[in-house]
């Protein structure tokens, strides 16, 4: 089953809406609470990254009996060095964003940690795509 959510760049007050919606779906499907928790943490970080770093984006979610596949795409500045961006603590977040409690540089590493597979592609000046897969039975 597929779901799609739009993510609005720069609107921190809405950050978390898409991950909340996906959380509600997983709860209805009797997915293990620990798995839900991991998925939601990864989703939330992915959603916040679009809000904080890009102009606009969308989240596509595909769920079957075994797994959840998530694809977050945005149009935005892109990531010049993905390996560097994946390092814990690396952040280009502005002082204003940090002020709001975001930008600790832990988003991408936490997404990787909390999903079974993650793949990031990006083109500078165009946008970023993050794909994550998590299996329900660990």
């Amino acid at each position, binding site marked *: 089953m597929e779901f799609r959510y739009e993510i609005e760049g720069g609107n921190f007050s809405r950050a978390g809406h898409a991950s909340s919606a996906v959380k509600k779906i997983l*709860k209805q499907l009797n997915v293990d609470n620990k798995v839900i928790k991991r998925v939601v943490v990864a989703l939330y970080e992915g959603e916040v990254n679009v809000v904080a770093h890009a102009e606009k984006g969308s989240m596509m979610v595909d769920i079957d009996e075994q797994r959840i596949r998530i694809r977050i795409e945005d149009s935005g500045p892109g990531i010049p060095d993905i390996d560097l961006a994946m390092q814990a603590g690396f952040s280009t977040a502005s002082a204003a964003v940090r002020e709001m409690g975001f930008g600790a540089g832990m988003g991408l590493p936490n997404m990787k940690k909390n999903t079974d597979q993650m793949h990031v592609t990006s083109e500078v000046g165009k946008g970023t795509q993050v794909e994550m897969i998590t299996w329900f039975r660990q």
Partner: protein
Amino acid sequence: MAEQQFYHALKVNNDLCFGCTHCMNVCPTGAIRIRDGKASIRKNWCIDCGDCMKACPVDAFYIEQDDFDKIYHFKYRVALVPAVMIGQFPSNISESEIFSVMRELGFTHVFQTEHTVDVIHELMLEEARSATDKPLISSFCPAVVRLIQVKFPSLVDQIMHVKPPIDTSAIFFRKKLQDEGIPDEDIGLFYVTPCAAKIAIVKSPVKDRPSPVNGVINMDFLYNKVLHGIKNRSGSSTRSPGDNLPNLGPKHISWSLTNGEAPYMKGRCLAIDEIHNVIDFLERVENDEIQDVDFLELRACDESCAGGVLVVGNRFLTAERLRKRAQLFKDIHGMPDDLVPYRDYMKSRVTVETPEPRSMLMLDTDTGVALQKMEQVRKFMCYLPGIDCGACGSPNCLSLARDIVQREAQLSSCVFIQRTMEKHRKLHGDHAIRIIEKTWGKDRLDKDCTKIGAKDEGS
């Protein structure tokens, strides 16, 4: 396990209920449906918060209590009263006046439950020191504990494992009387409750341990009796307020109010009251949006227990009076001397197990079947109008769609679908009326001038 139902003290009086949907629309867990013209509560979804009772225009909800005469089954009749009981009375009525009237009413002892707060507090601090999963969530408000069980099952491990003051004070007082040589069967402990949730906890059998109290008395009932007693006697009390009634200290007095626990816990602590605020916040906690918070005090009622459904006094005035009292007794600290020898006895008996998660959101235990059902729900949502009118007897269109999938309602329960079906000659007008009568009761569509707002209202 999942089949075992919660005990609920909250009941609907079918003679008074006329199926008006107020309760259905405010229920924070969507636990109410209208069937045959009456509100019916889904036992496994209800968390006993009492919002339905507060919203009912005809007082059709009631909280089952024990018969007051039951106290006379016992030779020693103890009233366990929380501080909000006192807070309801105007400030010119003194605590000792209230307690002496309670003794005139038949109690041999009156004990304020918050005297045991220090023991609870100590255990909470100990648990907080060793906990890894933060924020810890207070176990004080039973409605919140149930909310987490049904709606936020992933957070059950973060609920603290300490019993609230009612249980703790019951455990203490029974032991104290036993130590005075009184046989257990002569001891009757009665809890004066400000809400349905606390009764439910007291009455829910936990494994094979019997409930620590012998009965429950609703606070509004006792308030009326006490106030009546005070108003109807001339001069001073005929009976002393009884011994063993030291004043509560400021921490104890305000413990059940908003910001009662939070200031006494270590680290970053937040206090949130009112069920919708609590739900909203837990949603964020579950998303891991809230970081570096150590402790959450969460209460189902606005103004916490001062806003309990059985508290008669205005909640803001009740809270104000209690805070003034707390200020007045600001120099009182620690436990009363009587309790000190029982510290370890209590501490070893007031811990609880982690409550079981019992998700009400789950469409099916089998993920594959649940997925199919969700697909059906989404399909039904294409047809339902999405205006959440509740005329189907479910709180909103999505609930109806889920009810249909769970075979608890039909698509034709929706009045808009009925119109469409009639138009396409798939439903006869008489049949449509029968469907409506099934949800709203027979004769519901007949003229009735006695309903609220109508010509002969109330006659």
